[in-house]
């Protein structure tokens, strides 16, 4: 579903992501794990066709990002980091707006369906700007799936949430991993354990390790936040092969 070959992204002279290669198969949930500043968000923005790579080849659902970005955007649901939504719109109007942009058939029924799915029924007429952070995140998830995408890309879906809010949002993300091919970035190992079949470790713009998780490892645990050097420690703990220069 996603094929990345030697993707590099430069901002001026600085390479923010360098020679990234990986594949994501249909139905997989793949995590992108790394510290803040590792290049996760840039990579996600390239995957969602918000930015274009400086070099390399990126194919999503058989479409090349450079020539068919419109087709990719039509098929990829995206929850950005921080989820900036139109605060001056009500929840229902916003979801209808997104459904309209994606030309969803039977819009009203689908919007009602996601409102119910994400338990937003009591907030349909509330302005998004007045919602607390956890509900705001739920609206973000709802807009990402309202048009039935084929791939779901989540950029740090639990960032900034309180522990109880994280446990709550897990309940909404978990079913999505069974319905869609999901690619999510996080700096929290707990998110990886919760959802991912496979995790890619990212550091300084490069993929420095990869690990397939056993089902038993996908469980709820107290939230762990990455510390400096955590990737190396974690890689050792999980017996992941890691390039020595990134240790």
């Amino acid at each position, binding site marked *: 579903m996603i094929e990345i070959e030697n993707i590099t992204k430069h901002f001026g002279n600085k390479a923010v992501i360098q020679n990234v290669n990986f594949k994501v198969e249909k139905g997989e949930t793949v995590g992108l794990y790394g510290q803040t500043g590792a290049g996760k968000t840039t990579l996600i923005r390239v995957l969602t066709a918000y930015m274009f790579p400086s070099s390399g080849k990126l194919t999503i659902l058989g479409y090349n990002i450079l020539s068919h970005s419109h087709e990719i955007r039509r098929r990829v649901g995206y929850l950005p980091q*921080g989820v900036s939504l139109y605060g001056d719109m009500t929840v229902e109007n916003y979801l209808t*707006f997104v459904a309209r942009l*994606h030309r969803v058939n039977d819009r009203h029924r689908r919007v009602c369906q996601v409102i119910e799915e994400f338990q937003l029924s009591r907030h349909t007429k509330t302005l998004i700007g007045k919602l607390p952070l956890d509900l705001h995140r739920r609206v973000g998830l709802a807009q990402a799936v309202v048009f039935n995408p084929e791939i779901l890309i989540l950029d740090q879906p639990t960032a900034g949430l309180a522990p109880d809010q994280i446990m709550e949002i897990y309940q909404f993300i978990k079913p999505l991993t069974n319905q869609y091919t999901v690619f999510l970035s996080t700096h929290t190992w707990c998110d990886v354990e919760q959802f991912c079949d496979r995790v890619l470790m990212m550091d300084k713009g490069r993929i420095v390790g990869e690990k397939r998780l056993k089902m038993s490892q996908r469980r709820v645990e107290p939230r762990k936040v990455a510390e400096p050097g955590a990737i190396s420690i974690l890689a050792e703990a999980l017996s992941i092969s890691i390039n020595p220069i990134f240790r």
Partner: protein
Amino acid sequence: MNALVVAKREFETFLVSPTAYLIGAFFLFITGIVFSFNVVAHHQATLSPVFEVAGITLIFFIPILMNHLLVREFQRGTLELLMTSPVALWEIVLGKFLAAFLFLVVMVAPTIAYLFILIYFGQPDLPVALVGYFGLFLFGGLLISIVVMSSAMCTNRLTAVILSVALAAFLWLIGRLGAVFNGSVGAILTYLSSQYHFLDFVVGVLTISNITYFVSMIVAILYLTTHILKIRL
């Protein structure tokens, strides 16, 4: 077309904006004073002075009212979600323009009352008035395209207002330089002046040249805006 979806959303934000109503009311107050003065003092059944003052007023009001169009998308980060939807850049730009233009129509629409008053009490030249409205909307369209471009270039709303007013005033006054220079330079400067073309409409002169000027300027500026956005992203 997704430009219309973007336009609908944007237009709704105008309808719930207190600033929009305030500016709209102030616009009607100013044009109302000019209309009353013209009728009472000069006993003229014409809207030409109203159009002239309305045009000058819009140079300031449109940037104040519409500076947020793209600046706010950048400031709030909402452009990211819009840009990862199947919406082309030109559709975003056109959508913003259409929404602002529709609001301009709504803002100017109550001045039709002045025309009805003239028809009731006198014998105004209706074609002149209609050409005047047409010109006002074309001039307003030009100002809106300038504001959309400025808001794509700036990082905050105040700079967008200042840049828009400066560009609009420059285009308005550039014709004065035409009188300073002789020959083709003077002719080009005069042709580039929005005032030169707008004032023809105000007095009821409808020419293809004037329509072409406004339409081509609007299209060129919106096209440029799309490229500015592409560079900024």
